[in-house]
């Protein structure tokens, strides 16, 4: 321990020790000279003494060694040397740094996204014990999973679960905050009173909801997020206890959540925006079979998923708990089939749809980083070949092989650290700029996405690995040959021409680069082809055409303002009548669930005189002129008209698929038959079919056409008509949308407009995820191609320089320019072809991971494979073209004289 202290002291007293040592050695030399002086002359003796003592610098260095920390000192030395070299060769430095910054930056950005969505712990205590409950059935058609539960099931399950500390329920709703300036649409959830206890979160001000016997007192309570409290309630703690109006009802603010609390209602399609308003609900009086609640459970400590699932499974097969045929938006659980309960971690569940995508993108970005490293390693090798002289001298002067390798590794690490510094900066910018552009549906930001310690640790690890990758291969290669070259140098021999072992390695690296690039390109090509296929699918309606574009304006009619169906009908009729006469409107109508909207209600139906069809049908409530407005062809019969009122006979229009599958005889025969909607509150009466319309795709272009039973909006008395979308075909969309808003405000001043969107936008939004996937992979493939192109160019340019003499000889012996061109391009073609063959094999092996993202295209789609491969070969040859041209201009006289 004492020695360590002395060594540390030395760091500060270094100069004195050096002086001491110098003087001591001088003294020694003089004494030696004196003793020798007896035998020879003074000068001669001094020279002899110096010879005996040897290189004073070296001696001093060795004498000093015991005092120092040799690793750190040589490291500092190597770093200084590396920086000097980097300054001396700015072209190399900039290229290498840019390549590495791109590779490391992209990796860091993507990792921070993946980490935020998949792995960063949610902001609740023990988040791993929070699970979403679901039920699944194995049927002939595969596994049917249903994620939502009926309130009766929730009420029955809660007290009987032993594996859970708490079981909460929530449903995402839309809330309108009124009476405080502009009506405000805020993301909201209805939650069971124990919701916050389940999450394990307490309020910053006020309290959370009362549970148990006191719960009824909270029916008019509300808890708001810190964000809403700051933005709309002036961040005033005195607001606790005061009243705000939500969906037309006054509610008392009982609590404000802490800053940093975030809850994104996780639903089937991913996660919705963070909720700002939490309304307590016990769903009183809802004894129906409609299942719309998400169940969030907190497992007891030590309970694993298997135990929880076993317990739940026993309960869900009890008909008194889960009514047979309970209907969820996803479908109906079949009676007499065993139901398996499942649990999914809250985060895992929310990330579900993007998990695969993120892992694929991570894989892709790893490829890009590898390709970048290979490029820099290659550059480094070329540079080291040029530095053979320097290294030979170093080794001749006594630097060991290990020492040289260490120095070269240090150089690589300095480069990669520099690249990482720029890379992280790049990642920051990339995240800040691009993340807001990514649709929420594509990327549920569950854990929050930022570059923090965890991400930095990952990025540093990446940097070290890339540094090793960049440094080790060339270092071992070059240090192995340097010594031999040292002798060659000494003998005055000329450098070797042709393929040295170094060049062979460089070639292999470029082959690998081309292969990896091709894999990425083929992946991007597949997604692109799939996207083209997808977007060429017709939705079945005409979103835009000669008569203008279809715009929709959506509102939700709260119970407070519209307590009876008659009021809803009157409101809809009144607004629509005026909208029809707005200037620029060619046709207008209304619907409760527009295609490509978020809502789709489907359920069983019956046909009079036939066995019950094994098919669920959508059941939109529409106004007169709906099909004309959307451009859906009428195949038989008539549209609904203003005459189909609540008092008129009940009618329906069915879609072609229902006729095809359930009504033999074609559209004409279908007219006059009677159908009935079953299962939900909007059904139970027989409806006469008065028309047949063409099929449309309601949920997305990648889905099959939906069977539909359309009913007149004015004849429906269920709660489903609370959702109203006014649709208008118009050539002047902006003005008409404004007109519709004005009409709505005139009819109901306190109503917030939920959304205004054109059908084109709705369709585009539905293909946003595949477009995003295509763009991301395309971007990476492009980056990889750029880097690989540089790699091919570098290799060929270097080869041409190395073979100058050979080419000179060939030209002198009468080779034509075209021969030279063919020589160089032929070499490039070999390299690219080898890479392409490897890449194709790799692509066949890995594109399977894309299967779930492909529409109408197989993972080995011949078109994508051939086109992309041809394109890459062409790009590779183009990259080689420049050095090849340069080779043809080699002047044989000059080339031969230079050697």
């Amino acid at each position, binding site marked *: 321990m*004492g*020695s360590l202290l*002395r*060594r540390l002291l030395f760091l500060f007293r270094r100069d004195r020790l050096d002086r*001491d*040592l110098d*003087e*001591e*050695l001088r*003294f*020694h030399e*003089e*004494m*030696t000279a004196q003793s020798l002086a007896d035998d020879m002359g003074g000068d001669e003796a001094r020279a002899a003494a110096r010879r*005996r*003592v*040897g290189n004073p610098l*070296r*001696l001093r260095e*060795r*004498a*000093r*060694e*015991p*005092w120092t920390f040799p690793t750190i000192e040589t490291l500092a030395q190597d770093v200084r040397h590396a920086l000097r070299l980097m300054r001396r060769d700015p072209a190399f430095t900039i290229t290498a740094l840019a390549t590495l910054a791109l590779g490391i930056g992209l990796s860091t950005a993507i990792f921070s996204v993946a980490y935020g969505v998949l792995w960063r712990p949610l902001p609740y205590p023990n988040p791993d014990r929070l699970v979403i409950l679901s039920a699944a059935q194995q049927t002939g058609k595969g596994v049917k999973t249903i994620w939502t539960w009926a309130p009766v099931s929730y009420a029955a399950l809660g007290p009987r679960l032993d594996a859970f500390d708490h079981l909460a329920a929530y449903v995402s709703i839309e809330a309108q905050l009124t009476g405080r300036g502009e009506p405000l649409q805020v993301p909201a959830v209805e939650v069971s009173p124990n919701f916050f206890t389940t999450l394990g979160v307490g309020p910053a001000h006020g309290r959370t909801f009362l549970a148990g016997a006191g719960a009824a007192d909270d029916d008019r309570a509300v808890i708001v997020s810190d964000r809403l409290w700051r933005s709309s309630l002036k961040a005033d703690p005195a607001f606790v206890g005061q009243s705000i109006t939500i969906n037309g009802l006054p509610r008392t603010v009982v609590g404000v959540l802490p800053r940093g609390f975030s809850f994104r209602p996780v639903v089937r399609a991913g996660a919705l925006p963070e909720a700002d308003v939490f309304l307590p609900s016990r769903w009183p009086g809802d004894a129906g079979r409609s299942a719309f609640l998400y169940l969030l459970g907190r497992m007891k400590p030590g309970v694993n998923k298997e135990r929880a699932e076993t317990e739940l499974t026993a309960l869900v097969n009890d008909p008194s708990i889960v009514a047979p045929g309970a209907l969820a938006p996803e479908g109906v659980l079949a009676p007499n089939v065993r139901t398996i309960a499942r649990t999914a971690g809250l985060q895992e569940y929310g990330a579900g749809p993007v998990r695969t995508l993120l892992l694929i993108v991570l894989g892709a970005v790893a490829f890009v980083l590898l390709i970048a490293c290979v490029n820099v390693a290659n550059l480094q090798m070329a540079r080291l070949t040029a530095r053979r002289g320097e290294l030979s001298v170093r080794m001749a002067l*006594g630097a*060991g092989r290990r020492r040289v390798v260490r120095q070269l590794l240090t150089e690589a690490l300095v480069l990669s650290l520099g690249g990482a510094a720029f890379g992280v900066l790049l990642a920051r910018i990339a995240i800040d700029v691009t993340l807001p552009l990514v649709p929420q549906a594509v990327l549920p930001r569950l854990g929050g996405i930022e570059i923090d310690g965890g991400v930095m640790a990952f990025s540093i690890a990446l940097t070290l690995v890339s540094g090793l990758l960049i440094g080790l291969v060339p270092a071992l290669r070059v240090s192995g040959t340097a010594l031999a070259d040292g002798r060659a140098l000494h003998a005055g021999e000329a450098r070797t021409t042709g393929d040295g072992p170094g060049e062979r390695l460089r070639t292999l690296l470029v082959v690998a680069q081309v292969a990896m690039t091709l894999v990425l390109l083929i992946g991007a090509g597949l997604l692109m082809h799939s996207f083209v296929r997808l977007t060429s699918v017709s939705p079945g309606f005409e979103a835009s055409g000669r008569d203008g574009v279809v715009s929709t304006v959506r509102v939700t009619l709260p119970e407070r303002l519209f307590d009876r169906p008659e009021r809803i009908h009157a409101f809809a009729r009144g607004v629509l009548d005026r909208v029809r006469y707005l200037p620029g409107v060619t046709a207008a109508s209304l619907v409760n669930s527009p295609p490509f909207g978020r809502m789709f209600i489907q359920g069983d139906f019956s046909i009079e005189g036939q066995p019950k069809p094994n098919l669920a049908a959508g059941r939109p409530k529409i106004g007169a002129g709906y099909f004309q407005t959307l451009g859906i062809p009428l195949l038989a019969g008539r549209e609904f008209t203003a005459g189909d009122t609540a008092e008129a006979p009940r009618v329906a229009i069915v879609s072609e698929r229902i006729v095809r599958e359930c009504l033999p005889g074609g559209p004409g025969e279908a007219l006059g038959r009677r159908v009935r909607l079953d299962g939900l509150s909007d059904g139970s009466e027989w409806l006469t079919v008065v028309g047949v319309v063409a099929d449309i795709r309601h949920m997305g272009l990648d889905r099959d056409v939906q069977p539909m039973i359309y009913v007149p909006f004015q004849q429906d008395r269920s709660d489903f008509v609370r959702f109203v979308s006014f649709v208008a075909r118009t050539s002047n969309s902006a003005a008409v949308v404004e007109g519709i808003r004005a009409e709505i405000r005139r009819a109901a001043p306190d109503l917030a407009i939920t959304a205004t969107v054109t059908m084109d936008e709705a369709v585009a939004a539905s293909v946003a995820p595949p477009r995003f996937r295509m763009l991301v992979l395309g971007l990476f493939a492009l980056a990889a191609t750029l880097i690989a192109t540089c790699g091919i160019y570098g290799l060929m340019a270097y080869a041409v320089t190395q073979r100058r003499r050979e080419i000179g000889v060939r030209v002198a012996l009468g080779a034509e320019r075209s021969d030279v061109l063919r020589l160089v391009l032929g070499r490039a073609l070999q390299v690219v072809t080898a890479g392409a063959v490897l890449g194709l094999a790799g692509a066949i092996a890995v594109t399977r991971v894309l299967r779930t993202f492909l529409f109408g295209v197989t993972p080995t789609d011949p078109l994508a494979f051939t086109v992309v491969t041809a394109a890459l070969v062409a790009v590779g040859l183009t990259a080689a073209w420049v050095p090849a041209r340069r080779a043809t201009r080699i002047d044989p006289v000059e080339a031969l004289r230079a050697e």
Partner: protein
Amino acid sequence: MNATKDKNELLPGTLEMLILKTLSIEPMHGYGIAQHIRVISRAVLTVEEGSLYPALQRMLVKGWVSAEWKVSANNRRARFYTLTPAGRKQLGVEESKFSQMFGAIMRVMKTT
């Protein structure tokens, strides 16, 4: 790397013992130590400067010797090394280790 090729190469590990032994007689400067070992060993053992000074520095670091500048016999400033108590203890350790080793080698050599 720093092997001093010499006919009279020291047995490895013995240099420090020899220095300690030399300094146990009296404080000496580096040149004096080298001379002393050479003379006593009748020029069989030659201590190379390249080994001597690094060894002295090593021993300074370990705290076996201390150094101070004094005036030498011929009126020159020289750095004199003195054995510390720790160095004296170390000398004992090295001596017993060496004689153990030496005895062992001799036993092997005498066995016929």
